[in-house]
Each structure stands twice: as C-alpha cells, then as structure tokens.
C-alpha cells in the first residue's frame, strides 16, 4: 500500500515539476515583462521607477516602432502568401510515389533542417554586392553592374522575403503533400467521370479538400515570421538604415543595446498582443472556412 501511494505521488510530483518549470520560466517572465513595461527600468542608469502608461504613450509616437511593425507585417503577409503558393504548387508537382519523386521530396525539405544562422550566411554569399548572383548576372550580361540586393530598403525586404520563403516552403510542401494524399481517390474518379479537369478540378475538389493543411501551414508561417530573429540579424542586421528592422529585432536592440528595458518590455507586450491576435483571428477564420467548404 505504501509503495502504491509513493508511486501515485511520484506521477503527480513529476507533473507538478513540469508545471512549476513552465510557471517559473514562461508565465513568470511574462508577468515580469508586463510589470517592467510600466517602469523606466534601465540597468545603465540604475533607474527602475513606476511610470504608469508612459511607455505605451511613447510607442504611439515612435517612428522606428511604426516602421518595424509595417516591415514585420509586410514580411509576414509576403512570406505567408509565397510559401503557401509554392507549397501547394510543389506538393502537386511532387505528388507521385516513384523513387525520383521521393528523392526530390527529401531534398525540398532540407532547408527546414538548417539553423537560421547558416541559412542567412549562405544567402549572404549569394546576395551581397560582389556575391554569386551579381557575378552570374553580370557575366551572362543580364546586368551591366552589380545590383544591391541587400542595399536598398525595397530590395532588402524582397531578399529577406525570398530567403524566409525558401526555408518555409519545405515545411508547407510536406504539409500540403500529406493533405493531398488524404483526399479519397473516389473523389478524383468522380470528378473525372463528370469531366472536371485541370484548374476547375483544383478549384472544386483539391483546394477545398486540403483546407486543414492550409490552416496549419498559414498559421505556422505567420507565427514564424512574427518571431523571426536569426535570419534577419545575420542577413541584414536590420539595415540598410533600419529598414529591415523587424519588431523582434527592435525589442532586442532596445533591451540589450540601448538598455531601455522598461520600454523594450512595453514593445514586447505589443508584439505578444499582435501575435495572439493574428494567430487567433487567422486560425479561427481558416477553421470556419474548413467547415464551410
């Protein structure tokens, strides 16, 4: 009887330990961050006084913050659209079982396995002023002189979008492939009998049937971009002229370079709220769409 009790308690203890760790290293930091967002905490000036909503009112007039939000949301929208369009296309193209297709699928997923630091560095050797892309394009004669792929705000935005899409497409492809393979064959047979082919078949059969895949794929794409740090930090460091400074990068800069911990926490709260709203509304909308389709 005693042994049984200790075993009962053992399981509860392990569960409590897990919950305790979660409370200490996720919930408590969130609360501390929230508290800090109402202070002027700055380890360099040794200040840590309650300032009410001052940080939040300051955010309204912060041009760098506004620019970072516009950049982050633009990137999120661009990457989500591109990675999902590519994923669907890739999945339809690779939806065959022979060996060559299996090899191609394996390769398509590889970028997902690499760390963001490696991804960013490889792409940097491609995209810099005297990098591989410019060398190739000037040698062939498409360009007369090297183009600054990371040097102007618009080009850098597009370059980052391409790199992040490259990483995420492997993931979306695998998800859409699984979704495609879950479509009952009879459905395709029925469509063939009715003479429904090509784009019409895609619109009326394939697209509605892969809706659960779309929900997961779009949600993960959005959350990934909102959290993204390493690829941008290495590829552009937020430049040129802060034009690719995402909100995540801005928070780290405020907290660790400018030592404005209080204000950084307030911006972090904004990013958290934004992530929650985006994730919940988009997932909710996509789920409802699954039912209606």
């Amino acid at each position, binding site marked *: 009887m005693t042994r049984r009790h200790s075993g009962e308690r053992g399981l509860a203890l392990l569960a409590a330990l897990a919950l305790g760790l979660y409370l200490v290293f996720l919930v408590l930091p969130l609360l501390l961050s929230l508290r800090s967002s109402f202070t002027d905490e700055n380890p360099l000036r040794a200040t840590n006084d309650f300032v009410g909503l001052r940080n939040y009112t300051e955010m309204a007039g912060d041009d760098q913050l506004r620019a970072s939000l516009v950049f982050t949301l633009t990137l999120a929208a661009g990457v989500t659209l591109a990675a999902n369009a590519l994923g669907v296309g890739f999945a339809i193209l690779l939806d065959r079982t022979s060996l060559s297709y299996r090899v191609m699928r394996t390769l398509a997923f590889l970028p997902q396995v690499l760390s963001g630091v490696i991804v960013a560095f490889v792409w940097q050797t491609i995209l810099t002023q005297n990098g591989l892309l410019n060398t190739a394009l000037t040698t062939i004669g498409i360009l007369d002189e090297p183009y600054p792929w990371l040097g102007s705000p618009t080009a850098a935005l597009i370059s980052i979008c391409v790199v992040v899409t490259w990483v995420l497409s492997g993931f979306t492809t695998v998800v859409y492939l*699984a979704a495609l393979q879950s479509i009952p064959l009879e459905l395709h047979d029925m469509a063939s009998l009715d003479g429904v082919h090509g784009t019409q078949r895609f619109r009326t059969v394939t697209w509605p049937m892969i809706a659960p895949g779309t929900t997961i794929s779009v949600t993960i794409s959005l959350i990934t971009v909102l959290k993204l740090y390493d690829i941008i930090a290495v590829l552009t460091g937020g430049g040129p002229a802060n034009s690719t400074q995402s909100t995540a990068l801005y928070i780290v800069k405020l907290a660790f370079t400018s030592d404005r911990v209080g204000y950084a926490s307030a911006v972090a709260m904004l990013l958290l709220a934004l992530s929650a709203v985006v994730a919940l509304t988009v997932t909710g909308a996509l789920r409802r769409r699954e039912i209606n389709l």
Partner: protein
Amino acid sequence: MRTASGTRVRATPAAHGRRLRVLIAAAVTLVFVAPIYLMLVNAFKPQEKILGNPVAPPLPPTLDNVTEALTRPDNLIPLGLRNSLVVAVVSVALLVPLGSAFSFYVSRRTGRTKAAVLLVLAAGLMVPPQVTLLPTIRILTWIGLDHSYPGLILANLGGGYLSFAVFVYVGFMRSVPDEIVQAARLDGASGLRIWWQIVMPLVRPATATVAIFLSLWIWNDFLNPLFILGPLQGQTITTGLYLTIGQYSVDYGQLFGIMFLAAILPVIGYLTVQKQFVAGLTSGATK
C-alpha cells in the same frame, strides 16, 4: 520508349507528359537546393577556388577547411559542437519524461481542469522568445544560474518547448484505451508505473516526434544561447558560427567548413529518421 521485345515505338502522349513532369519537378528542385549545393561544395574547396568559381564541384576535394575549423587555437568549434550536443541531449532527455508525465496526469483529469491547464500551456506556443528573454535571464540571476549551461537548459525546460511536447503527447494520450489503465490500476500498479511501463510504450510515435523536433530546434537555437550564455561562457555551435562570421569575413573556406560541421548532424539525423519526421510534421494537417 521500348517494348518488351526491344523495338522502339512512338512514345504515347501520356509518357511524354510523365517525362515532362519529372523534368519540370527536377528543374524546380535543383533551383531550390542550389544554396545547399553551394554550401556543400565550397566546404571542400580552397579559398582561391571558392572565389574563382563558387559553383564548380570540389575537384579534387580538400578536407583543409574542416580540419582547420576543428583545430583552431581557440578550440571554438569542437567546444561549440560539444556544448550544443550536451545542451540538446540533456534538455530533450528531461523534456520527454516531463512532457509525457504531465500529459498523462492531465489527460486523466476532468474536462474543465484539463481545458484550463492546456489553455495556459498553449500560450507557450505563441509567445515570441524576445518577450520572455530578459526576465528569464533575471530569474536565472536570482537563482545563481545566469550565464551557465544549467541555466540555459532550465530555460529550455520551462519555455515553449514544454508546450510543444505536451500538445503532441496529449493528442496521443487520447488513443490510449482507458480499460488498459483501469485494469493495471486494479492489479495494483501505481500511477508512476502505469505511465512508464504501459503508457510510454503505447505513445512511442509521440516520443519520436517530440525528441526529433526538440533536438533540432534546440541544436539550431540562436537567441537563447546568445543572450543566456553570454559571450564569456563559451558558445554553442550556432553562436560560435555567428561569431566567426564577423571574424572571418574574408576567409570563406574556413566559414564554409564551420557551416558544414554545424549542419552535418541535423542533416544526417533528418535523413535517418525522415519517415517519423514527416509523420510528426503532418499529424495535424489531415483530418
């Protein structure tokens, strides 16, 4: 196209279509993996050849970049590899039992408690790490574990990784038949024993998914090791690579060698457990 007797016949339109499809798929895949090809070939080429023609295959291949990276005087790369391995293995070895025991315990509670606890844990999947980074370092300072490996591992255990583990496990716990658990209980088995000897073997696919993805994410993690360990307490392979990018902006050979070393373990891991990898990834994507 050849028939069984070996005489040439005209290819049918369907065969043409099939061949065209393979060609298009292969072309798209090649463009897609081109950056990885660059990374691989240049890891085995000397600096002059990288600059001369980065796209050329490494003929003859040289191991100099890799050996130089491994024998640097500051020992940055071997230490980084070792540190990453220790952090990933210890974190995952602790996250698996914590996550599964917690999920088993919670999945046996009533609907409302379960829903409330899972809602709190769902937050962990959404919170951007930048939001909790600074307070986490402060908490580690309070308990005297800031800028240390145990501190980094503790932060891994309590953050979003645990949420991920719990969500995977809870999904699988539903498929564990209640009768088995009840029967074991009647036989006098304790909760701890039922969990370890009956439930764990039944949810092995979940353990595979959790272990595979958490090892990959922790190995590739950048923000946490960069700021929780700090510059003085050594490096993981990702932060070590990040450091050398600044140092060796001209020595491409060295950099590609280090990248090869940082990527080889996850890539081999992915290739060996590919099936479980894809299964884990897509378990939620289909109804």
